[in-house]
């Protein structure tokens, strides 16, 4: 067989696996529902300027806190801004922070986890101690402290979230690396004279990738909640409207005591739905990757 036909076969095999995956995923009703909600939010985030009737800087100062009407679908906030439009623009912030923070978290976690698991020894015990330490520390107060010191910017929030949440990923990746390291094919590669870098990229990384995938998704859910929490505490980036920040302003300007439900309900509902969609997708992936759970 020549090289070309091997390559074609490989591609076909890969295609079959993707199809098989899609079929199992389609049968999972949580996963499907999550994917539909997520697609909706991605659409909102990407096409915000075309969907939203106003922009975040359009203020109708004469009409603050006006109730939902045909002019303002979800009413207005304290500056007379259209809440429906703010909600749509806020999608982008939540998504971007969630996805980037999660990617950074998993990159740090994977690097540390593989390094600790593969090399072992003193590096491993120091990393274990460090992850234990970070796992025990109360996450939100640590994020608050870091965000307060670094100052409000969207990049600082991404950094703060990932620096506090990487240890969980590192833990999981490390234990997976430990078991792959002991396998016979790694031993065989070593016997053939393969270097550490080759083994890590050729054998360890492909084996931990499915796990990484599920963790990225589940981490996004956590990161979105963290961003919303920090913004609600007034640590958000004022130049990027986000759902947590909307709730912060709603709370600050007494929307509650005045019973302005149209300012309080939509942002929380949006956070909840987006996080829920990621959680459902994450669980569906986890179920497919760890078939042991499937029979439950």
């Amino acid at each position: 067989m020549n090289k070309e036909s091997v390559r074609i076969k490989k591609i076909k095999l890969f295609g079959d696996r993707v199809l098989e995956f899609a079929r199992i995923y389609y049968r999972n009703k949580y996963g499907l529902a999550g994917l539909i909600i997520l697609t909706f939010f991605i659409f909102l985030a990407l096409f915000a300027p075309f969907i939203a009737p106003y922009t975040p800087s359009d203020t109708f100062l004469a009409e603050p806190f006006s109730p939902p009407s045909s002019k303002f679908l979800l009413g207005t906030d304290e500056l007379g801004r259209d809440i429906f439009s703010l909600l749509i623009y806020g999608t982008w912030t939540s998504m971007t922070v969630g996805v980037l923070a999660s990617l950074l978290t998993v990159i740090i976690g994977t690097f540390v986890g593989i390094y600790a698991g593969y090399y072992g020894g003193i590096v491993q015990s120091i990393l274990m101690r460090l992850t234990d330490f970070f796992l025990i520390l109360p996450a939100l107060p640590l994020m608050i402290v870091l965000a307060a010191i670094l100052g409000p910017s969207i990049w600082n929030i991404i950094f703060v979230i990932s620096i506090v949440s990487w240890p969980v990923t590192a833990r999981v990746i490390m234990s997976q690396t430990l078991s792959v390291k002991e396998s016979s094919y790694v031993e065989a590669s070593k016997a053939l004279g393969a270097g550490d870098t080759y083994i890590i990229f050729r054998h360890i990384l492909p084996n931990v990738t499915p796990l990484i995938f599920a963790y990225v998704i589940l981490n996004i859910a956590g990161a979105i909640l963290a961003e919303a929490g920090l913004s609600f505490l007034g640590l958000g980036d004022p130049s990027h409207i986000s759902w947590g920040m909307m709730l912060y302003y709603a709370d600050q300007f007494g929307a509650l005591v005045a019973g302005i439900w149209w300012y309080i309900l939509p942002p929380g509902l949006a956070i909840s739905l987006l996080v829920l969609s990621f959680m459902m997708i994450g669980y569906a992936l986890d179920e497919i990757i760890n078939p042991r759970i499937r029979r439950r």
Partner: protein
Amino acid sequence: MGLREFVFKRLIDGAILFFMTVTLNFFLFRVMPGDPTAFLIENPKFTAETRKALLKLFGLDKPLWEQYLIYIKNSFTFNFGISFQYLAPVRDLIFSVRLLNTLALMIPATLLATILGVIVGTVAAWRRGSKFDSTSTFVSLVFYSTPVYWIGLLVMLVFAYYLGILPFRGSITPGIKYENVFQFAADYLWHLTGPLLTLTLVNFGGYLLIMRSNLLDVFSQDYIVAARAKGLSERTILFSYGMRNAILPIVTLTGLNMAFSISGAVLTETVFSWYGMGRLIYEAVNQRDYPLLEGIFFLLALMVIIANIITDIIYAYLDPRIKY
């Protein structure tokens, strides 16, 4: 290894974690900001003498390693300087009625969430695949995905604004004169209801899911099959064989969950203006009161570490199989 050695080992671990916390705090508040004096001393409200005294207290004119030693010494006595906004020692601010208020919110919320989670989780696992099972799993997923403070806002919107049966904010009615202790207790509990409900709702989902999966694990064990074969009643199997074994890991979870619970408490307290540590963090952040922030973070981290050691020891005591 006996229980005594285990306790000793955990205490040493605790001491190491304590020093790691001190080091992290030193790094965050002394090394990371370009100019630590701006973080500790440069408050326009401080007099020249106060500034001089603080400079001496923290040894900010000395080399970094000497500052670190001074910092360790100060950490033992919770000497974190003077709060920017309250102009009082941080130590007096954190060891006050605020700490008691936070504990009065967190401990009952954790207990309630555990009990609720264990009960609902048991029923869900017992009737696996039923409507009750899928609904409760989904509901706990929803509560996990929902921001705590938003639930708090909803609780207030419904119970305070529309129904008018709960107060809006605070931990006691301001300006009220109590005639006796019972009146105070009633007022306090009335204010506690909202935050307690919120924090319990948010925390219980995690316990439910863990209890459910623990029980399902236990049910697949050989001794359950043996118990069934012996003809024991389903009740005996569930209570004496199933729950007894499934409930143990919940103890450890309660300790580990302290960190999660504190994050929830910070947000809940902020929303309800509950006069506790969480609310204090919020104030410290908004006023950029760094010495106060430093003190609160240190105390919260310490609380979590201590809670973890205690639950580990309780777990080792309850489960004789586990002797590390």
